[in-house]
């Protein structure tokens, strides 16, 4: 009998543990007396980033804890998008986490992000100091779902040595996209074999501003994919031609993972890439002498892409007040300065960009300038499907298996069919 009772209690115990693991959590209280928050602990979810970013983030956390007495636990994601979703579904997501602008509309629609408008109002936060495109990327339905921690834009990198040895000066690099292919063709003849004139990653995240340069958005107002309008095709065709003439290549064509490595290995003389490549090249390829310029204009208009990431508050968090304190501090002038100075990223606050004199920074200036006109990588919740199909079919146009029009028509059709059946 004894053994029976024992086994029964084992069973009951384990079912108890199971039930406890599945239990829900209570609705969080929103309190706002700062001194009450001392000694609390919150979790902040990030992805790893560069070494400099890791170091700067630790400094930011230390400064925050000193200022407010709130302790912060880090949760670092290796595969951010998949892991964060799993955490959100499982109810184990951090109190505050990075949200890529690209994902913000989908996540806010799911109700997992806490609207920050009231918090900002109560704290008298100056929202006008943020760069417009950056903060707007986190607004949907007139609500604010995150505050940008920094931003990145695309710019043009050139390898000084390769350009000069080919008999050109950096000033010869055209500032208009229309003249770029001709220049690349001249450059190609002078470059040593095995070095391609230009390299770029071919995906919608880098091309959206090109496609939209004629005024047609890639996702229409009624949430349909629009990829094959004449003005879009006309804007994209030069890239396809340049690719087929081997003036522009993709990193995968050279057997490399991303453009920054190809450029750093001096396999390409020019690259269009985000400002994150600066620190990567300085760290891993210190011998490469690089310069940067703004992306050449299309039809006389400046264009670039903007990628921005916010700190957002988990709507399911038990420590919303403490979580907001962290967001507020990290996006304050003090916090922003520690982060952007240490990590070498572009601050999302105009005042800090000025304070750090980034507009005079030789390498970063073109990227800061793009902050004013760049297109944010965000277009509602249908963008992930549109991007998937664009990235799937563009290579077929580049290699010549299909014409650009055929490829884009097919991408558009596949995306629209999917949007129709899968998104409500």
């Amino acid at each position, binding site marked *: 009998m004894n053994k029976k009772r024992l086994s029964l209690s084992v069973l009951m115990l384990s079912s108890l543990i199971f039930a406890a693991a599945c239990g829900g959590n209570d609705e969080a209280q929103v309190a706002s007396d700062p001194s009450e928050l001392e000694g609390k602990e919150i979790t902040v979810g990030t992805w790893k980033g560069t070494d400099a970013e890791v170091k700067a983030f630790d400094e930011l956390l230390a400064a925050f804890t000193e200022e407010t007495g709130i302790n912060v636990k880090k949760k670092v994601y290796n595969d951010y998008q998949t892991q964060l979703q799993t955490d*959100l579904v499982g109810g184990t997501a951090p109190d505050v986490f990075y949200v890529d602008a690209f994902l913000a509309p989908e996540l806010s629609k*799911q109700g997992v992000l806490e609207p920050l408008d009231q918090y900002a109002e109560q704290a008298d936060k100056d929202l006008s100091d943020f760069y417009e495109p950056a903060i707007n990327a986190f607004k949907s339905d007139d609500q604010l779902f995150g505050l940008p921690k920094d931003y990145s834009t695309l710019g043009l990198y050139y390898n000084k040595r390769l350009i000069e040895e080919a008999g050109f000066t950096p000033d010869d690099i055209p500032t208009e996209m229309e003249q770029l292919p001709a220049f690349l063709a001249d450059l190609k003849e002078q470059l040593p074999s*095995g070095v391609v004139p230009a390299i770029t990653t071919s995906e919608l995240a880098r091309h959206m501003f090109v496609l939209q340069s004629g005024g047609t958005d890639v996702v229409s107002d009624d949430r349909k994919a629009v990829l094959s309008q004449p003005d879009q095709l006309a804007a994209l065709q030069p890239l396809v031609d340049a690719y087929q003439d081997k003036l522009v290549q993709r990193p995968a064509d050279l*057997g490399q993972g991303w453009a920054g490595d190809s450029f750093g290995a001096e396999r390409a003389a020019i690259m269009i890439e985000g400002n994150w490549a600066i620190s990567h090249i300085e760290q891993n390829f210190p011998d490469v002498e690089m310069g940067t310029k703004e992306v050449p204009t299309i039809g006389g208009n400046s264009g670039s892409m903007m990628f921005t990431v916010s700190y957002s508050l988990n709507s399911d968090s038990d420590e919303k007040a403490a979580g907001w304190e962290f967001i507020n501090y990290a996006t304050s002038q003090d916090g922003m300065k520690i982060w952007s100075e240490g990590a070498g990223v572009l601050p999302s606050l105009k005042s800090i960009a000025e304070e750090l004199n980034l507009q005079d920074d030789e390498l970063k200036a073109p990227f800061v300038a793009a902050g004013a006109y760049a297109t944010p990588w965000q277009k509602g919740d249908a963008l992930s499907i549109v991007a998937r199909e664009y*990235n*799937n079919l563009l290579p077929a146009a580049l*290699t010549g298996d299909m014409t650009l029009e055929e490829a884009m028509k097919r991408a558009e059709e596949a995306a629209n069919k999917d949007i129709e059946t899968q998104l409500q």
Partner: protein
Amino acid sequence: MGTQLEINRRTDAAAQAPSPKNGKGSERNRREALQGVTFMLPTLLLLFTFTLLPIFYSLFLSFTRVNLFGGIDFQWVGFTNYVNAWNDDRVWTALNNTFRYALFVVPIQTAVALLMAAVLNSGIRFQNTFRTIYFLPTLTSSSALTMIFMFLFSLNGPINNLLVNFGLLEAPVNFINETDFALATIMVMNIWSTVPFFMTIYLAGLQDIPRSLYEAASLDGANAWQKLMKITVPNLTPVTNYVILMGIIGCFQLFDQAYIISGGTGGPNNATLTFSLIIYQYAFQTIGTMGYASALAIILTLIIFTVSMLARRLNKEESNY
């Protein structure tokens, strides 16, 4: 097999068990049964929580349009997800790719593994060294292998250089980014990396074949090829069944290579879109389509089940037992 005495004792116990009169015996039996269940409980719980529950949960999800975020919100939609899958061109493309892949990879990897095992079992010199070397690819992570293969097969990579230098190709071929070659590159890579594992299983199977069969065949004047086809292959049928089964399952679940080569899109032009990749896309890349992803996962399970059973039956019929 126990001794006769043991068997007798067991029959005794079995005969006693159902008898309600013998209270002492039934009490003991019940206690033993409880002990048995207690010992199995951890495993049963794990099996239930991490295997059965997810399977039934995704079966349930496949009939819903579900939002797993925040408050869970199910909407029963019946067979809509399955109907959508039937009408989805991308699903058919993925199915086509996956079938083509399995049809090519499974027979080759099985045949090559068997041949290599037979050679390595024949008593050639440095047998153990070769076994170790051949086993190495299996130990390497498949994502690392994919990166290496992407380099090897890249436009300026060693494979292209070799082929061009030997005059087999006029100009380098973009194996990874061209629609016609992307899947074939993954096939080559997968055969290369899985053959050693199956070879090891075959090697183990070869130890069970009695030497006397080969000796008898030699006396009758059979040559090496005849011995392989008439003794080794038929005697290995159970092992071959296992190898083919695991091969088919592995092929239908092909994911990481396709994911890395296409960056998760299944491109170029759907050439590397596999069934597992499409499930991943709906489960994790698009938010709110978990129900559809679950339906696709159930379909994949049914397909693997059917194909495996078919393969088993075919192989049995051909066996020479």
